[in-house]
């Protein structure tokens, strides 16, 4: 696992997993977590490719997907910028959260658990966690 920083964004690239998804997901999280601020410029395809030693075409594919997400926008002659709309980022965060919750629910169903079982289990885990922090 390689940890690298390019223009203030840190990346952890694992060459045993598809690279396109890693770049995409790591920039998505950096935006959603606010590590790259609204309206901020992100590195150019070439800068990121050089910084990570990854094929520029792979980086470009990830950038195109970010644009489709509505998280970034290209400005002619100036580069790529994070959207300045906090609404858009929030909407994206919810989309991802919903998607993951759906997957989670599906998996729990496949295990034969009811929502009550799952909720009781989550509550118990949260209680245990609190107990660990304040004995």
């Amino acid at each position: 696992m390689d940890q690298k920083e390019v223009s203030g964004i840190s990346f952890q690239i694992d060459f045993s997993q598809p690279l396109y998804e890693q770049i995409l997901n790591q920039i998505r999280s950096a935006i959603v977590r606010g590590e790259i601020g609204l309206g901020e410029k992100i590195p150019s395809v070439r800068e990121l490719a050089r910084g990570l030693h990854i094929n520029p075409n792979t980086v470009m594919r990830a950038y195109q997907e970010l644009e489709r997400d509505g998280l970034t926008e290209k400005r002619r002659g100036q580069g790529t910028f994070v959207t300045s709309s906090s609404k858009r980022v929030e909407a994206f965060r919810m989309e991802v959260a919903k998607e993951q919750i759906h997957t989670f629910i599906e998996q729990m169903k496949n295990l034969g658990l009811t929502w009550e079982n799952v909720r009781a289990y989550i509550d118990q885990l949260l209680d245990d966690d609190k107990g660990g922090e304040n004995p």
Partner: protein
Amino acid sequence: MTDWAVKGEALFKSYGDNKALSGLDLAIPKNKIVGILGPNGCGKSTLFRMMTGLVKPDSGTIEVLGKTPGWRTNREIAYLPDRARWYPNHSVRQAFQWAESFFPGFEIESAVKLARYMDIDLHLTVKGMSRGQEARLMLILCIARRVPLIVLDEPFSGIDVISREHIIDGIIDFIGEREQTILISTHEIHEIEGMFEYVLLMDKGKALWSGDIEELRAQHGSLHTVFRSFYKRSVITNGS
């Protein structure tokens, strides 16, 4: 079909008892950076020599850019042979001028730009160069050519990590600006593996696996893991 940069079917080539290629099939797509990977003696260099018409297959067919290899196709290929050297008395600038008059498609402005990326002084003389500097010069002489196919045989052998990184930076700055297929054979994959888009894994003169490298990663993990598992398996199957 001209959708392929290189297409070969059932290629065989022996040197005496030594089988260099034994039934190699390949179909390399155009305009990608392609890794041709495998242990020493797997047939990579023989394949490259065949693509440039330097050796003929004993049987099977090979097409480069849709044509049989020969002097016509060689005008469209920039080939960096393994352990290539240059005239010791030339300076970098003289080497570029020489290349401009003899190499089809050589662009001196691109060469000068690449030399800057790769940290090579134009006044440096070849005989005063380190192994890594000369290797970088040889590489510049190849990739500064506007030709559809670039073939680099072990461009990193004997080159230190810093030089390798300079080389990769130079390649990154170049691709995307033109339509080119770049074939790179290497057994030192560490710095370069993120650059490949397509790989052909070879062993004992045959293809073990070929395809999109992202698919390879999704199915089998890193190239290191792939190397270990694929080649161990092929040793076992061949030994039994």
